[in-house]
C-alpha cells in the first residue's frame, strides 16, 4: 500500500497546492522540470526550496504565475514599476511578463547534485551575477554545456 515512487502532477494543479502550503508559512522543496534554468539546474535531477514571496528584485529566481494556472521558475531580468520581465537562465530568447503581484514565491535555496546552495550565499550570488553578465554569449555557453557528459553538467 505504500510505494516508493515518483508521482508527477500537472504543474498548474501541483503549484496551486504548493502555494497554499507556502501561504500557511511552510517552505517546500520540489524537483525542477525542464532545462530552462541551466546551467545550474538540471531537469529532474535538481531541486528548489521555495518560500512565499518576500521580495521582488532584479536577479531573483522566482516562481511566477505568468498567465492563469501557468507557472515558471525563472529569473527576474527587469522591473519597470509593477511590470516584471522574467527569463530562464537556460533560455537564449523568450522572456515572460507579469506583474509584481504574480510573483508567488522566492527561492530560499537551490539544490544541485544533492548539494544545497542558499540564494543568500556567496556561491549562488556570484554565479547569478556572472551568468547575467554573460548573457551576450549565453547561446554559445549553453551549446557547450549541452554537449558535456551528463555527470559534468
Amino acid at each position, binding site marked *: *500500500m505504500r510505494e516508493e515512487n515518483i508521482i508527477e*502532477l500537472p504543474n498548474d494543479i501541483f503549484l496551486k497546492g504548493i502555494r497554499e502550503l507556502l501561504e500557511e*508559512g511552510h517552505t517546500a522543496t520540489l524537483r525542477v522540470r525542464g532545462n530552462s534554468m541551466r546551467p545550474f539546474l538540471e531537469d529532474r535531477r535538481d531541486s528548489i526550496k521555495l518560500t512565499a514571496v518576500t521580495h521582488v528584485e532584479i536577479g531573483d529566481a522566482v516562481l511566477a504565475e505568468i498567465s492563469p494556472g501557468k507557472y515558471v521558475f525563472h529569473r527576474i531580468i527587469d522591473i519597470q514599476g509593477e511590470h516584471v520581465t522574467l527569463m530562464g537562465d537556460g533560455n537564449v530568447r523568450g522572456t515572460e511578463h507579469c506583474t509584481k503581484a504574480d510573483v508567488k514565491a522566492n527561492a530560499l535555496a537551490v539544490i544541485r547534485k544533492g548539494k544545497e546552495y542558499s540564494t543568500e550565499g556567496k556561491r549562488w550570488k556570484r554565479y547569478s551575477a556572472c551568468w547575467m553578465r554573460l548573457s551576450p554569449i549565453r547561446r554559445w555557453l549553453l551549446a557547450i554545456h549541452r554537449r558535456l557528459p551528463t555527470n559534468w553538467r
Partner: protein
Amino acid sequence: MKIKEGFELREMCGENIIVAKGIQNIDFNKIISLNESAAYLWKALIGKEFTAPSMVELLRQEYEVSEETALADATELIKAWQEAGLCE
C-alpha cells in the same frame, strides 16, 4: 499500536499526503503519500489504539475483500508505517 502524534493527512491535488506538523520545510522528494484505502484507515484510526485485526475489520466494512487479503494488506501497511516512523 497507535499513529504517532504530530502528523497530519492532507489532500493535495488528489493525492493523500502525510505532513509533519511543525515541520517548516516540506520536501516533495521525500513525501509519503497514501492510497485511498490507506488514507481511509488513517482517518479511522488516528488517535486510537489499533492492531492488524482492527484494521482488517475496518477494511472489510468498506471494501469487499477476503479476510486473508485484508490481513495481508493490513500487515504490510503497519510494517510500512513503522518503517516510515509514523506509528509506534
